[in-house]
């Protein structure tokens, strides 16, 4: 059995009792990476030398240090800036960004909690994608079947945990980029409330939607990690000055009387029958556990995709203006003027999907079109947000599938942006409303691919989301299954 099948708390206890060392954990991580990452391709950059040195250093304190994540090896999505450790955001533009000058706030918090960073995780370029096929390095693969995509954009973060390369990781979620890959890879992924976790040092995609969140094997591990990274940060003016409760204390295993709303739009014709069945079974399980559910409506759901693409692309076109070839990253060779330097560095450094979204965003913000597209989308966002607020007046959580289908095959959707975008149809509204959502395993397709259950809560009510997720998880066995990928764990 891999050490990483233990929970984070169990690993800490073993460290504390000196049954294992930090070096054992770090070795385990790199050993597994050596075995399977040629296939899974979850990592873009490894931090092996520094991680092993840090493990040795921490081992001196073992047993005497109760830092929250003491000695636990973590993988970090490659759009989260790590001081002195290459950060590419999956883009060729940042291929040579070897020496970031500071740590993102979440990374500072991980360091203060004394975790060990194993490496930087693969992702769709600048987090734009739903399959990892937009990574400009190598597309990560689904550990359950490497012919399939792991999802995106945090595909590497989910695949690394599912493959047992690290026990937990950080991802980021703008329209589903934590929850969708968590669903596809059969792990637990939470997008916190907008403002819950500092975005300082997260390479911005769409600033009004982006959130960093944890990806783990279990709900308990997830709650444990969120406790460490959440909280107000003066370096992020959009981080919320709201108290962070103990999320692990919320895991009471009691959902008696919990009121669940199930949006009829989330179980429509467009949702694959296997996924629908898995969700219906989950609702039955909740009934057995003493919760009640009723059908509700989020009437503007069908407008979420359009709204999202207009808003996120507009914000991206502004955010990505900083990649100009002056201070860091790509600069095209033999440029004769400043303008040529901007135009060609960006043309050579960005991939097709990134260019497409910059173009869409620039168009939507351009003079003459702003009101028709950008402002209209912001107004529809209000309607979508109101839909959620209305349901939360009467219900504690909203439950539905995370994605309309299980993972699809590599190459299946790569030529058609619109079909690719449709993957995120059930996760996007959550970002637009700014509420928290989690994906947990709730079954497998006939092809043996995981299916994800999405649980959505009200603003800043991650506790109820975790409580509902945990009770279901404890009453089922899906989270205990592991992919039979090559190597020692096969």
């Amino acid at each position, binding site marked *: 059995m891999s050490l990483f099948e233990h929970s984070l708390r169990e690993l800490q206890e073993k460290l504390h009792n000196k049954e294992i060392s930090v070096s054992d954990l770090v070795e385990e991580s790199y050993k597994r990476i050596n075995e399977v990452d040629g296939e899974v391709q979850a990592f873009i950059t490894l931090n092996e030398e520094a991680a092993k040195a840090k493990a040795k250093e921490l081992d001196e304190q073992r047993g005497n240090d109760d830092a929250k994540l003491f000695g636990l090896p973590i993988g970090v999505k490659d759009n989260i800036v790590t001081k002195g450790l290459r950060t590419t955001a999956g883009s060729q533009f940042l291929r040579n960004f070897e020496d970031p000058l500071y740590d993102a706030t979440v990374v500072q918090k991980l360091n203060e909690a004394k975790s060990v960073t194993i490496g930087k995780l693969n992702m769709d370029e600048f987090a734009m994608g739903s399959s990892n096929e937009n990574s400009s390095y190598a597309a990560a693969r689904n550990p359950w079947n490497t012919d399939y995509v792991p999802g995106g954009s945090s595909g590497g973060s989910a695949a690394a945990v599912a493959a047992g390369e690290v026990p937990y990781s950080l991802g980021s979620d703008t329209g589903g980029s934590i929850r969708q890959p968590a669903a596809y890879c059969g792990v637990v992924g939470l997008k916190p409330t907008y403002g819950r976790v500092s975005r300082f040092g997260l390479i911005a995609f769409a600033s009004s939607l982006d959130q960093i969140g944890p990806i783990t094997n279990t709900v308990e591990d997830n709650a444990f990690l969120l406790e460490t990274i959440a909280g107000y940060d003066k370096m992020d003016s959009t981080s919320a000055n709201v108290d962070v409760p103990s999320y692990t204390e919320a895991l009471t295993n009691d959902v008696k009387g919990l009121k669940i709303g199930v949006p009829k739009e989330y179980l429509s014709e467009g949702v694959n029958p296997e996924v629908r069945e898995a969700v219906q079974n989950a609702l039955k399980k909740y009934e057995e556990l003493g919760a009640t559910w009723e059908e509700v409506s989020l009437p503007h759901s069908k407008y979420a995709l359009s709204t999202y693409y207009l808003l996120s692309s507009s914000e991206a076109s502004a955010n990505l203006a900083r990649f100009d070839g002056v*201070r860091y990253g790509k*600069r095209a060779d033999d440029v004769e003027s*400043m303008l040529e330097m901007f135009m060609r560095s*960006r043309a050579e450094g960005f991939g097709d999907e990134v260019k497409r979204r910059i173009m869409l965003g620039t168009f939507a913000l351009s003079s003459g079109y702003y009101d028709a597209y950008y402002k209209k989308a912001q107004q529809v966002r*209000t309607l979508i947000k109101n839909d959620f607020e209305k349901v939360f007046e009467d219900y504690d959580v909203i439950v539905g599938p995370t994605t309309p289908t299980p993972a699809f095959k590599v190459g299946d959707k790569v030529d058609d942006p619109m079909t690719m975008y449709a993957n995120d149809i059930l996760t996007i509204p959550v970002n637009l409303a700014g509420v928290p959502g989690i994906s947990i395993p709730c079954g497998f397709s006939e092809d043996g691919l995981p299916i994800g259950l999405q649980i959505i809560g009200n603003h800043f009510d991650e506790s109820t989301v975790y409580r509902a997720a945990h009770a279901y998880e404890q009453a089922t066995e899906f989270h205990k299954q592991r992919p039979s990928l090559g190597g020692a764990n096969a």
Partner: protein
Amino acid sequence: MSRISKEEVKHVANLARLAISEEEAETFTKQLDDIITYAEQLNELDTEGVEPTTHVLDLKNVMRKDEPKKWIEQEDALNNAPDHQDGQFKVPSVLE
């Protein structure tokens, strides 16, 4: 009717400071047209009088005191630069 012309695509690419080939201009014209056509479903909705949401939280602008403090050393700031000289970022001539 197409929503966006190839000329508009070239204009937008210039605004976005993105060099695109003739072939890319054609591909983007088709793809952007598809996306925008789809997005026009939003026009089904009457949004008269609906406040636009820029941020989901009621955020107030946070101002800090304008005080100098140490952040990044000049030398470090140049570490990742494609080109630099005499402690400054070096770029091609701005004026033609």
